[in-house]
């Protein structure tokens, strides 16, 4: 079943970000605030509007994601590419970052 999260690009450098459950804009989708019902989606949309006003992010969108185990998997290819980076340059974008040490 798909749920929704809020994504945007950061104003200063265009970096792809997601609104976290902690209220911060996160550089990775893990920890994104998940909306599971209509009211929560409205809240995401409101959070998006106020984020635009506060000039932190641009191009704010609510997107569909699937919960796959503990991972969030965006439904649209476009969003999966935003999440990882260009599929033809695995050395670029978020996919190129070294995994955090456990």
């Amino acid at each position, binding site marked *: 079943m798909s749920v929704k999260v809020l994504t945007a*690009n950061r*104003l*200063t*450098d*265009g*970096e*792809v970000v997601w609104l976290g459950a902690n209220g911060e804009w996160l550089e990775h989708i893990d920890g994104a605030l998940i909306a599971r019902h209509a009211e929560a989606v409205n809240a995401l949309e409101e959070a998006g509007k106020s984020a*635009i006003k*506060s*000039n932190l992010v*641009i*191009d704010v969108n609510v997107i569909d994601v699937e919960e796959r185990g503990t991972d969030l998997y965006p*439904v*649209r*290819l*476009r969003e999966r*590419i*935003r999440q990882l*980076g*260009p*599929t*033809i*340059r695995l050395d*670029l*974008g978020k996919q190129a970052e070294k995994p955090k040490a456990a």
Partner: protein
Amino acid sequence: MYRYDEFDHAFVSARVEQFKDQVERRLAGELTEEQFRPLRLMNGVYLQLHAYMLRVAVPYGTLSSRQMHKLAHIARRYDRGYGHFTTRQNIQYNWPALKDIPAVLDELASVEMHALQTSGNCIRNVTADHFAGAAADEVGDPRPYAEILRQWSSMHPEFSYLPRKFKIAVTGADRDRAAIQVHDIGLHLKKNEAGELGFAVYVGGGQGRTPMVAKKIRDFLPVEDLLTYTTAIVRVYNLNGRRDNKYKARIKILVHETGTEEITRQIEAEWQAIKETDLKLPQQDVDAIDTYFAPPNLVQRPEGWSGLAAARKADHAFSAWVDQNVTPHKNPDYGVVTISLKPIGGIPGDATDAQMDLVADIAEKFSYDEIRVSHEQNLVLPHVAIADLRIVYDLLLTDGLATANAGLITDIISCPGLDYCALATARSIPVAQRISERFGDPERQADIGELKLKISGCINACGHHHVGHIGILGVEKKGEELYQISLGGSGDEICTIGDITGRGFSSEEIVDAIETIVDRYLEIRTDKEETFLATYRRVGAAPFKDALYSEVANAA
């Protein structure tokens, strides 16, 4: 090439200062995104999927070594070590931070470059034949006129808020390498019976959602009337072009809906009213701009030909490269070298900072300091002595720039597609890479011969798929990428829009489908001299559709 004078320097600097101020105000929250967006677009700054994108204008595709070194420096210092050359002879950087862009614009201004009017509903970067000033078949160099148009269209007070973007292309040879008939205005520089220079004027071509071949509205326009006539065209468009629907706002729709005869009447009437105004070009001004584009003083190098024959005999790969990537020059001692940015399996149009530096160095030593960017997403060294071809080839070879595929099936035009672009609906680069690998064998592609394959990742057609001999359009259908094929398009002097074959193909199927088409061509061509396009024009779509849909059905 053109050099800025004080006037140009002051103008560009003022624009950079304005943008610096706008960026600061945006970062400080004094401008909202809604207010800032049109301002950043006027400076070539887009937001793409992963980051901002900066599109830098390369006017009519001409660069000096110093400028190319600067483009390499920007890629290294402010981006991720590469740039993407586009079908509009521009270069795009995919990862700049907004806060760095004013500094990038400063760097560009220091080598007489800018990003102005690379976006927005204004007159965009004027493009021209990438072999201008060098090709053996040229009647006149189109670049002086492109430069006059560039100046005249810069921050034009009347034409900065047109219904939609507006693209002008100029060619100076009968062989159209600038695809002028798919531009809003296409200008074909030619001579009349008296030997005077002028233009055949085409209006209303374009690709996108509704592809149209331009209509010729004037067979010969004297050079002195270039700006008055262009003003008349753009004014008629600005007043009457549709503004109710973004997809019907280009001049091609106005020409189509108004009718060629009536729109010509309106343009001619407006022109009569302004023909004798301040915009009529004095010959001395045309001459002065012309001087900047005077051909370099080419040293006589007749010794090249004998050495060339021997070198070709000794190295088959070099010989294939000469055949494919070297075009006749006006001066028989010289050739025009196409540097393919389409390595087999590579990303069409991408060049690393090191490659840009290498090309700049080679151009400085062996091409009279001149480089061109082609709308086919390649680079060109316009003046290379035949005697220097071998050393230039060897240098290009050191960094993967000597692929011998200009004009062949692996010389694919591809837009960035869904890997980068916020408008895209499907990926195009990976499809280009897989096709390139499938046909990468040099013998095989040479046997197939001239075949222009072009891929767009959405209906906007930045990958020019409508005028590909084989065109591929990627769309999104039920969450999956789906690729439509069109055949028989051509962007040259006999301009045609390709015909869609039928239902689309999945990402898995598309490369096989292309191979099916190519195999069918090889079966039915009269001989090796009959190109894919000529065969298609002779037999039509039926044999290809047959092969495509019956075979795929059989295989399923």
